[in-house]
C-alpha cells in the first residue's frame, strides 16, 4: 500500500493496539529526531529514584576511597592496629576497648571507634572503609573482567558460528556446570595456597587479583550467552548484510554494526554484574576463599563477627548493612536503567 513514506509502509502491518497509543501520540523527543541513547538518557534523568540510588553508590565508593583520610585524620589509627589493652573515654569514664571477657565496645559515635571495636580491638569504622575499598574494587574490576571476556566470547561465537561457536558454547556449558560458589571456592582455595604461576603470569596468593580473576571467570557464561544470542540474531539483519555487501571486513562489521546494538544489553548487565560480584566476593571471603587476612573485606568482617555474635552482634550487622546498601543501590539503579532502555514495558505496567 503506497500511502506515504516508507516507514508507514513498514509499519502498515502493525494494527493499533493499546501499547502503540504512545506511537499515536508521537513522543515529541522522538519526533525531534533524537537518537535512542539520548532518549534513554532523558528517560533515566526523569527517574529520580534511580538517580538517587546511583548517587548513593557513588558516595559509598567515595567514602571507601577516602579510607586513608578517615584513618589518619579522624580515627587516628590503622585497620590492622589492635588496641586490646587500650582505654577509651565513654561518657567521661575510661572503658576498656576490649573487656575482660573479650567483649569489645559498641559504637561510640566519636572520632575514635566511631562504630566500635572488633574482637581484636581494631577500629571497625576504619576496617569498614578499608574493607569496603577491597569489596567494591573487587566487585567493579571483576564485573569489567566478565564483560571484557564475555563480550569477546559471545561476539565470536555468535558472529562466526560453526566451529568457533561449538567450541565456545561447549566451554560455556562446562563453566556453567560448576556451582558458582564452589568454583570460586575451589579456585580460591587452590590459588590462595600458592598463588598463580602460569608461564609469564605470577600472582601472589594473597593478591586481590585472585578473587577478581575468579569472580570474573565465574560469571562469564551469564553474559556470553545473551551476547551470543543477540549476535546470532543481529547477524541476520539487513544492515549487517548491507555492510558486508559494501565490502566491510568481518571485524569491522562486528565493531561498527553489531557492537552498538549489543551495547544496550551490556548497559543493563553492568550494574547487575557488579552487584553479584560484590555478593560473591563477600560469600567467598566469608568462607575463607576470597580476600585473605590480614586484609579485610566486608565478607571477612562478617565471618569474624559471626564468631562473636553473641557478645557483639554489631560486628555482624555493620558490614552486612554496608553490603546490603551497596548492592541495593546498584539494583535500584539497574532497574532504572532497564526501564529507561525499554519504556514500553512501563507503559503496559500503568494500565
Amino acid at each position: 500500500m503506497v500511502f506515504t513514506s516508507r516507514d508507514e509502509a513498514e509499519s502498515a502491518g502493525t494494527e493499533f493496539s493499546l501499547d502503540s497509543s504512545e506511537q499515536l501520540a508521537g513522543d515529541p523527543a522522538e519526533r525531534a529526531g533524537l537518537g535512542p541513547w539520548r532518549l534513554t538518557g532523558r528517560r533515566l534523568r526523569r527517574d529520580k529514584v534511580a538517580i538517587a540510588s546511583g548517587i548513593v553508590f557513588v558516595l559509598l565508593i567515595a567514602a571507601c576511597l577516602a579510607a586513608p583520610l578517615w584513618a589518619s585524620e579522624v580515627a587516628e589509627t590503622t585497620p590492622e592496629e589492635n588496641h586490646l589493652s587500650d582505654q577509651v573515654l565513654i561518657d567521661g569514664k575510661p572503658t576498656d576497648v576490649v573487656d575482660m571477657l573479650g567483649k569489645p565496645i559498641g559504637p561510640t559515635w566519636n572520632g575514635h571507634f566511631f562504630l566500635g571495636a572488633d574482637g581484636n580491638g581494631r577500629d571497625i569504622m576504619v576496617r569498614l572503609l578499608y574493607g569496603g575499598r577491597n569489596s567494591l574494587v573487587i566487585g567493579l574490576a571483576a564485573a569489567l573482567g566478565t564483560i571484557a571476556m564475555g563480550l569477546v566470547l559471545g561476539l565470536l561465537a555468535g558472529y562466526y558460528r560453526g566451529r568457533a561457536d561449538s567450541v565456545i558454547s561447549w566451554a560455556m556449558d562446562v563453566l556453567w556446570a560448576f556451582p558458582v560458589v564452589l568454583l570460586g571456592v575451589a579456585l580460591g582455595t587452590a590459588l590462595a595456597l600458592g598463588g598463580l604461576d602460569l608461564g609469564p603470569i605470577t600472582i601472589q596468593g594473597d593478591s586481590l587479583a585472585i578473587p577478581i580473576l575468579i569472580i570474573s571467570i565465574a560469571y562469564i557464561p551469564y553474559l556470553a550467552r545473551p551476547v551470543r544470542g543477540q549476535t546470532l540474531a543481529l547477524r541476520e539483519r539487513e544492515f549487517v548484510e548491507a555492510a558486508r555487501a559494501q565490502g566491510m571486513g568481518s571485524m569491522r562489521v562486528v565493531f561498527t554494526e553489531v557492537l552498538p546494538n549489543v551495547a544496550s544489553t551490556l548497559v543493563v548487565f553492568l550494574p547487575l554484574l557488579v552487584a553479584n560480584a560484590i555478593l560473591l566476593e563477600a560469600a567467598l571471603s566469608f568462607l575463607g576463599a576470597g580476600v585473605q587476612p590480614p586484609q579485610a573485606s566486608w565478607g571477612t568482617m562478617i565471618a569474624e563477627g559471626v564468631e562473636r555474635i553473641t557478645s557483639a552482634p554489631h560486628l555482624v550487622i555493620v558490614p552486612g548493612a554496608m553490603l546490603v546498601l551497596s548492592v541495593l543501590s546498584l539494583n535500584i539503579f539497574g532497574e532504572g536503567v532497564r526501564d529507561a532502555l525499554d519504556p514500553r514495558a512501563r507503559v503496559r505496567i500503568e494500565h
Partner: protein
Amino acid sequence: MSAPGSLLDLRDLAVSFNTEEGLVQAVDGVSIELRAGEVLAVVGESGSGKSVTATTLMGLTRGPNATIAGSATFEGTELISASDEELRAIRGNRLAMIFQDPMSSLDPVYRVVDQIVEQIQAHRDTRSGEARERAIELLDAVGIPDAAKRADSYPHEFSGGMRQRAMIAMALSLEPSLLIADEPTTALDVTVQAQIIDLLRDLNQRRDLSILLITHDIGVVAEIADRVAVMYAGRIVEQGTIDEIFYEPQHPYTWGLLDSLTRIDRPRPKRLSQIPGMPPSLLAPPRGCHFRPRCPHAFDRCTEVPSLLPRVAAAPGHLDRCWLEPARKQELRQAGDRDALEQPR
C-alpha cells in the same frame, strides 16, 4: 431509533487514552450502522482509529486509562455501558472477532481443538465429547483438510492460512450474528489472502453472517464489501455503498487512496502516486478538518470541523466530510490524471 434490519448501530463513539505524553483521541465521534447480512468495510491507514473502534465494541479497550463515550447498540443491547459480565456473555457468543496475526492469536500450549471446545463450553452447557465433535465439524467447514486428525495439532503445526481458518472456525462456533474481522489477511501471503476472503464471502452469502471488516487494503474491500466507511485520524470521512465509494468518491482523502492503486487500464505512471505528508499526531490534531494539512484543495472553511452529511442529492446514503461543493469535487476528480475508477459501461 435504529432502522429496521440494523444489527449494529454506533452513535458518536469516542475513545480516548491517557498516555504519558497526554490525551490521545483515538476515535472521535464515529457513527455508523451495519445492517443484518451485509459486509461493512472500515478502511484507513495505521492510526486511523479503525481497530480501536472494533476492539472497543468487544470491550477490549476498557481500562483505567481509557475513556469511552457514545453508544453502540448490538441486537438491542447497549455495549458501551454494559457491565463486564453482560459483555462477556455476548463476546464469542453473539458477537465474535478474529484478529490480524493468527500465529500469535492462538495459545501455543493448547491444541487447536481444545481451544475451540473451551469457547463452546464457556457459553453453553455442552459435554466435552459433543463439543469436540462440533469443533471438528467447524474446522472441516472452513476448509481444513483432514479435520478430524488435524484438530489435535498445536497452533504452530498449522500454516498461516490454516491458522486463520481455525480462528474463523473458532469464532463461529456459537453461531454469532456478527463477525468483526480486524485485518484478517494482512499477515498472510497474497494467495492465501484470496482464499480467506473467499471463505469470508462464502460465509456471508450462505450462512447470512454479517461482517464488520477492518482493513487498510482497498483490494480486499473491493472483493467483499457491500458498504464502506473511510476513516482518517479518528473520524469517518466518507461512507457509502461500494459503488458509490469507488465510482463517485467525494472526499480528497478517498481520492488519494484510490489514486495510489496501480491501474492496469492506464498507461504506467512514472511514479506511484502518494499522499504527501503523514497522518497527524492524535495528541494535538489539526483544528477543523483533520485532513486539512495534507489536502491540496484546502480552503479557509476547512478550519471548521465538517460534519458527516449526505451532500450528493441522488445518494442519501453517501455521506462525506468535505466542505467543497459537490460540483467542485466532480471537477477536481476529473482534472488530469486524478480520476476515480470508471464505472463499467
